[in-house]
């Protein structure tokens, strides 16, 4: 077989381009079929999309994006998105898009942080030498990983609204924080003149403590003398803003929720839909992150731990300085996938009515204006951009963590 091909190739070199030879040439044939496939696929998509728009037009359905400018006319469950956009029913459909986007981002952000913390903790606990701790962590993973996430969201939500008391019998914490079935009511900070200075001093404190840390790190490398930097950090990051805050005469007021006729009014209401969704997503995603962390730790050679012990490092030091830096290298790529999953799973919020992108924009606006193609395309684009952004960010981190070639 090989000989024949070589022969035909040899012949074609002598005779130049020959159709018969091309027909029997594997490379040419493969190329030809790839071109045909490509043309067919593009053609089919082109026809499908053309057909779609033709049908939409024939059925008298509105097309285009002018609906974005129209008045929305409906209310949205008041949460972060509403406050940031200053949403009222008079706002446009495009503001609903922003409200949904912000609510999606806040779930993704809080969920990623929370699931990482839980995942890290459970992942390490599962490898603990303590039998009970290891089995409990294993049980946690098996339980939460094997129940569908939609079910978990509905479970936590319905548990929340049925378990906690009516606003009139709220659990009160020092009479400034309240918890009831309508959510968590926190004091709402109202900054006054001069609060900006306090915020600035916090920033200065963070930057300064970074330089202090760098300084002592250099000293450690040069002289081998280890200096603990945390007292400096505390003084700079906490102390400095507090002093400025007091000097300026406490330029911050708090609005505390009070009981109205039906509800607690005022304050900052963290709605149960958000709490249930974030909790369910974090608890669920954490199981996968925990497994990723465990696989990372187990991938580190046993000799590393023994060597760390041999040079006199404590178990904590060995974990922090030797094991985790190497383990994270293995654990980061699967963890990135879980962050993406969490962000995309947040669209399940539509089941409990948390006003994120798919619920507020892809649901309510879609139903009020009926332009499914435009609205869903916009929503898909947003999830695509968020997902690509997360992977870009974490690919950067991954590159930083990767073994440096010498």
């Amino acid at each position, binding site marked *: 077989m090989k000989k024949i091909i070589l022969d035909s190739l040899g012949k074609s070199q002598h005779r130049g381009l020959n159709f018969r030879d091309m027909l029997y040439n594997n490379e040419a044939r493969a190329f030809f*079929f790839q071109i045909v*496939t490509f043309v*067919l*696929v593009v053609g*089919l*998509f082109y*026809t*499908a999309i053309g*057909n*779609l728009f033709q*049908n*939409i037009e*024939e*059925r*008298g*359905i*509105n097309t285009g994006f002018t609906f974005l400018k129209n008045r929305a*006319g*409906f*209310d*949205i*469950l*008041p949460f972060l998105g509403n406050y940031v956009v200053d949403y009222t*029913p008079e706002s446009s459909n495009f503001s609903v898009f922003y409200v949904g986007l912000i609510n999606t981002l806040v779930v993704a952000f809080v969920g990623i942080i929370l699931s990482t913390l839980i995942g890290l903790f459970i992942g390490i606990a599962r490898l603990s030498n303590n039998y009970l701790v290891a089995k409990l962590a294993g049980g946690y993973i098996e339980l939460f990983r094997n129940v569908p996430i939609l079910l978990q969201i509905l479970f936590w939500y*319905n548990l929340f*609204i*049925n378990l906690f008391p*009516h606003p009139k019998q709220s659990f009160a914490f020092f009479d400034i924080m309240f918890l009831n*079935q*309508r959510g968590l009511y926190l004091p709402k900070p109202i900054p006054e003149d001069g609060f900006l200075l306090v915020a600035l001093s916090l920033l200065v404190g963070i930057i300064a403590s970074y330089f202090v840390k760098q300084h002592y790190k250099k000293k450690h490398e040069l002289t081998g003398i280890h200096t603990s930097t945390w007292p400096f950090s505390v003084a700079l990051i906490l102390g400095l803003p507090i002093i400025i805050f007091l000097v300026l005469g406490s330029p911050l007021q708090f609005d505390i929720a009070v009981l*109205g*006729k*039906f*509800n607690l*009014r005022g304050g900052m209401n963290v709605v*149960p839909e958000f709490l249930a969704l974030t909790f369910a997503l974090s608890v669920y995603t954490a199981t996968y992150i925990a497994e990723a962390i465990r696989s990372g730790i187990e991938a580190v050679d046993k000799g590393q731990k023994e060597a760390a012990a041999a040079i006199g490092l404590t178990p904590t030091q060995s974990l922090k300085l030797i094991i985790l830096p190497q383990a994270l290298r293995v654990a980061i790529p699967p963890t990135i996938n879980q962050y993406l999953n969490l962000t995309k799973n947040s669209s399940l919020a*539509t*089941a*409990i*009515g948390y*006003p994120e992108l798919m*619920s507020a924009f892809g*649901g*309510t606006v*879609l*139903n*009020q*204006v*009926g332009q*499914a193609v435009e609205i869903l395309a916009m929503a898909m684009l947003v999830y695509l951009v968020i997902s690509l952004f997360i992977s870009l960010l974490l690919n950067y981190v991954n590159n930083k963590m990767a073994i440096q070639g010498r």
Partner: protein
Amino acid sequence: MKQLLKLSAASLLVVGALSVQASTLGDVQAKGYVSCGVSKGLAGFSSADSSGTWTGVDVDVCRAVAAATLGDAQKVKFVPLTAKERFTALQSGEIDMLSRNTTWTITRDASLGLNFAGVNYYDGQGFMVKSSLGVSSAMELSGAAVCIQAGTTTELNLADWGKANGIEYNSVVSDTNAQTLTNYDAGRCDVLTTDASGLYSMRAAASDPSEHVVLPEIISKEPLGPVVRQGDDQWFNIVRWSLNAMITAEELGVTSATVDEVTNNPERERLMGRSGSTHEYVGLTPDWTYQIVKQVGNYSESFERNIGINTPIGIARGVNALWTDGGILYSPPFR
């Protein structure tokens, strides 16, 4: 190559599914059933019992169309839809008609590629609260949390009404009727708002109906009716006149029990298809209206059977009485 074939086949399916069906009537008769979009369960309007049989006034409109087009009121495939899904399902051709307590508005009629074929229930938006709250008027609701279903005109009316009356509220939005009701029962919100008929239906389904009060204010007009796709006038006429046949039958005093009696009332004979040629205009058999009344009954029968005063839902005819009885129910003449 195999993969390529698979891909092409899949793409052809997409293209095929997207193409316009020329005649809904032809499609329905070819497949042998009417695919009808209904609610996910609203007692008296459209709900399925434990054996999977659908009943309700909205369901009866689907059955009337099946009786008219296929001669058998049972040949309906019910597709339960949430408020949010309903228009997309109809636009995409997944269902042949929508009969799901849907309010007729100009936006829906003129911009969604849909046509409303008539009104089978004149409704209005109301509020329900727990009796223990001691509220007797919707004007006292400032500061309350309101449970509401997503993707409804109710959401829009509530915002308009709140603004006009200076009433502030938190809206708690859910996707389905069931979750809205769960939220209200659990106390996530103080007030439940939807069409008054829906409130009566939910109150009837509650474990103790006397624990809930429907407030007297009606804040909107909600004419509910069946919907079809734009661009198929024959099908539009069939759905519209199937509903009108039920109303006209009540007006003429024809019931499913008396439909076989031959009288000398020419209008009645025309309606029953024993004279005249209305069936030709809509492309159906002469007995199409006869089958509707025989198998489904007239409007009054359907109403009293499903939501009338002797049912647990207990709604009086009110504005839904015939125009001759002081209501606004009115069918153009059959001639």
